[in-house]
């Protein structure tokens, strides 16, 4: 049996309480929500936090709703809830695509959306999905709230710009009508982290791409995004050739690392191929040709 190193455990009763506990325990404390990334790392003793602040009782952080022209997702929303959400699926099929291939039902039943973003694992699917749709996150600290563009949230692998005593509380996704979105992933086996994955959102102006968002997972894309490819695609005809060209541009700006999931050149190929496929499917959805 793998057992973690000793640590203190605190259960937060409110967001304010959680922030207070984070302030008290300092930078070596970690928030635990679903725990499906953190606890395995603790059991392997790769992570040895001094204290865990458990936020699972903060049920008011679990919601998915539309307010104005934004989709709001509470940080403690479980993966399974995002997968099942009709309102999220209606506006952003990309989330359903991604959630279907995140881990397995057991993990999805407990793992949280906010936890996924904060874990900042370079191979985590939702970071790229949120980067593609241009989401922002709300962080709360002792001095109040601030909003951070999701493309500014990650400071590096397993690192965010959140202060040690800040708690991510909400994700906001702008809703713009007429778009389509999709997520494409290659994994070695169901439930595995991706070898690579790509998410795309496309808005059309007739047969032209009016606007596009592209997110990339596990290929060393800065902030999980492909802004150069997005720019190149804007105003181009919504054709396979354009998508393939965007895929090539996206891949050029990646820095994939070889590991047991594959050599760098293969991951780069996947960046091309999966970006192309995600754009193709997102476009089909924007045209109402595919669910």
């Amino acid at each position, binding site marked *: 049996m793998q057992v973690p190193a*000793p640590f203190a455990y605190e259960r937060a009763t409110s967001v304010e309480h959680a922030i207070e506990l984070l302030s008290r325990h300092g930078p070596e404390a970690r928030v635990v929500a679903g725990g499906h990334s953190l606890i395995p790392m603790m059991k392997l003793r790769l992570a040895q936090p001094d204290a865990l602040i458990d936020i699972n009782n903060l049920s008011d952080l679990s919601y998915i709703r539309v307010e104005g022209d934004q989709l709001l997702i509470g940080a403690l929303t479980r993966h399974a809830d995002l997968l099942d959400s009709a309102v999220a699926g209606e506006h952003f099929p990309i989330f359903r695509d991604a959630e279907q291939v995140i881990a397995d039902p057991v993990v999805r039943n407990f793992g949280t959306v906010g936890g996924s973003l904060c874990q900042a694992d370079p191979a985590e699917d939702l970071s790229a999905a949120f980067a593609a749709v241009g989401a922002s996150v709300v962080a709360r600290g002792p001095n109040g709230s601030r909003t951070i563009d999701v493309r500014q949230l990650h400071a590096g692998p397993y690192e965010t710009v959140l202060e040690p005593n800040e708690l991510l509380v909400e994700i906001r996704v702008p809703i713009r009508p007429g778009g389509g979105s999709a997520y494409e992933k*290659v994994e*070695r086996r169901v*439930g595995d982290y991706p070898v690579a994955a790509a998410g795309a959102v496309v808005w059309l102006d007739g047969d032209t791409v009016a606007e596009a968002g592209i997110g990339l997972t596990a290929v060393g894309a800065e902030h999980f995004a492909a802004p150069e490819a997005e720019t190149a695609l804007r105003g181009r005809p919504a054709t396979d050739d354009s998508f393939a060209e965007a895929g090539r541009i996206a891949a050029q700006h990646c820095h994939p690392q070889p590991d*047991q999931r*594959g*050599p760098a050149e*293969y991951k780069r190929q996947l960046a091309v191929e*999966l970006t192309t496929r995600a754009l193709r499917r997102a476009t089909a959805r924007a045209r109402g040709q595919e669910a």
Partner: protein
Amino acid sequence: MTVTEERPTVGFGSTLRKEDVRFVRGKGTYVDDVNLPGMLHGAMLRSPFAHARIVSIDTSAAEAHPGVKAVITGETLAGLNLAWMPTLSYDTQAVLATDKVRFQGQEVAFVIAEDHYSARDALELIEVEYEELPVVVDAKKALDADAPVIRDDKEEQSNNHIYDWEAGDKAATDEVFSSADVVVAEDILYPRTHPAPLETCGAVADMDKVTGKLTVWTTTQAPHAHRTVYALVAGLPEHKIRIISPDIGGGFGGKVGIYPGYVLAIVGSIVAGKPVKWVEDRSEHLMSTAFARDYHMRGEIAATRDGKILGLRVNTLADHGAFHSTAQPTKFPAGFFHVFTGSYDLQAAHCKVTAVYTNKAPGGVAYACSFRITEAVYLVERMVELLARELDMDPAELRMKNLLRPEQFPYTTPTGWEYDSGDYQKTLTKAMEMAGYQQLRAEQADRLRRREQGENVPLMGIGVSFFTEAVGAGPRKHMDILGLGMADGAELRVHPTGKAVLRISVQTQGQGHETTFAQIVGNELGLPTEDIEVVHGDTDQTPFGLGTYGSRSTPVSGAATAVVARKVRERARIVAAAMLEVSTDDLEWQENRWQVRGDPEKAKTIQEIALAAHSSLELPEGIEGHLDATTVYNPPNLTYPFGAYICVVDVDPDTGQVHLRRFIAVDDCGVRINPMIVEGQIHGGLADGVGMALMQVMAFDADGNHMGANFMDYLLPTAKECPSWELGETVTPSPHHPIGAKGVGESATVGSPAAIVNAVMDALKPYGVRHADMPLSPAAVWSAIQGRPLRTDLAIT
């Protein structure tokens, strides 16, 4: 609610498993469920390096940690002459490292504490100073002149060479090759994998200081062999050792050998005077216990232009890790690899195996391999496939043309094995019919046409494999482990009311012995399966025997069970004759009763006879007063199950993803005792095949770091990757087995990887890809298409 009538079941058939009543209710008892009063807990410190000299070990802080009772190091053990132990292959293995560590994860120190947490935390407090040494990771470089010598503990060892071993007729084979129309050669790796049973290894050792009796609950497939080995190695009297193998959560050959952790639990109990539990975690299990395969093979096949296979030649480099500790019959250093001629009628064959030490964990024989027939079948089935490609022949047709014919049995192979029975064409024909082979080929051709016209449809591949297994070791004159002949005992008692207790030496790890063996007894004696208790896994309760591995339980212990039941039946005949006041010659066994010939009204069941045997009836001479019997079964030959497998895959060439569409498996394992259990075993073995073919490997980086030490990195296939298996059967009984059964536990693991790899290679034919090594991960498939196949045994860089 459906009410089903419960009738007693007698004999063979798909009855539910008796043992599942406790398993599905979570009432099994595994080693980790054993908790004794005052029990202490052990934890192992392991080496972070693959090769390093131990400069010093400081245990003082760990010893001072609250709850810690003792810290054992190699030095402690050296004082007891236990720092090294013999392996099952006449080598030695460090129990705890004294001089240096030789693989990442090797055992360095053992902490005993009041609870598992204290023991684990104390490991962090042991300070070991290492001096890193150059490592041998690539087996192909192990014999280089400048390779560091791993086993410098052995005086006679000046390099990393373990053995050279040959089988077959080299001159005759060379002759066949020199005159053949066609010769095809390929380098084929069967990479290092691990059986990864869901229960890891562990032991609870309890040395009773008053009686001097040592009881060990442990994860072993061979409790009797373990008892004898402990007696021989540790000098403990054998009658004072009791090995209990409770419920075992999968073994697959990985629980045959003796691991340092077992020894340390025993030493710990002796030192601490209390029971000691040690159960390793998943990473420890994957890093240090018996791996499987790791054969680098160079195969060559010779044939005539019209597709008659003439000869097969193989050169193998075997990576054995840091200690030569494979668990296999002594006279077969490469196991049964030299059954590598497979199912084909060929003129000559020769193989050579060179084994080397590397800085990796020891092992080699595990994962349902039938003593390395997995490697042999994979090799020959890949070579036949490559030959078909070269000859531009359909691979099924090429096999059909070269398979042994029914009239050739019993058949002696060019390397001296006598196959007992087979009708191979019938089995392959059945598989092809079930698959709709010709329609599949037509669909494949249609796909190619559509792709050529620019349509984006996946590539399609069809893979065939045909395997012959050799299972059920001995006979004892040819096969032993550390001098212990490979035979098995059975003991059968029939109580006065006709309920029976069968005691056997083999040990189930999930195969359903408690049901199958009861069915064998029931079939011989006419008793309901429910009325027969099967006792196993406790050396104080069962007769001696070599245990369960190499698919040997049914071939050997199943035979012993049938034989001992027949002995009981013959004793019953004498008693029945007395009861019916006739001569034994006047009785015949009819409808599960001893019956007077020609007079069905006069008959006695075993239940009636058993009661009489314990009654005041005057018993005839030679019967002491019960029906009980014992036997030891020494098999006259192995049994040779076989099968034909066909796999259909779709491959996405742009991502390298393989989708396994269909898998047809027609197995012939002779007479099936419980077809449901047989099919369950085949399902499991086919899933193993999916794992090995598509996702499993233990690779090592340049520093000897293990790249697959947890279930995120070492992948087990799930239901998602497995198609709905399509099973079929043919029945060719074994002529020498009492009930005509052959072993089946490993058939599907042996036969399936080649079918899957052949299917993927078939799909990649348009790209000119001949071969790529397992596992065929998306990256490996895509890289093969690019003409840059991955070296799957090394870390991807």
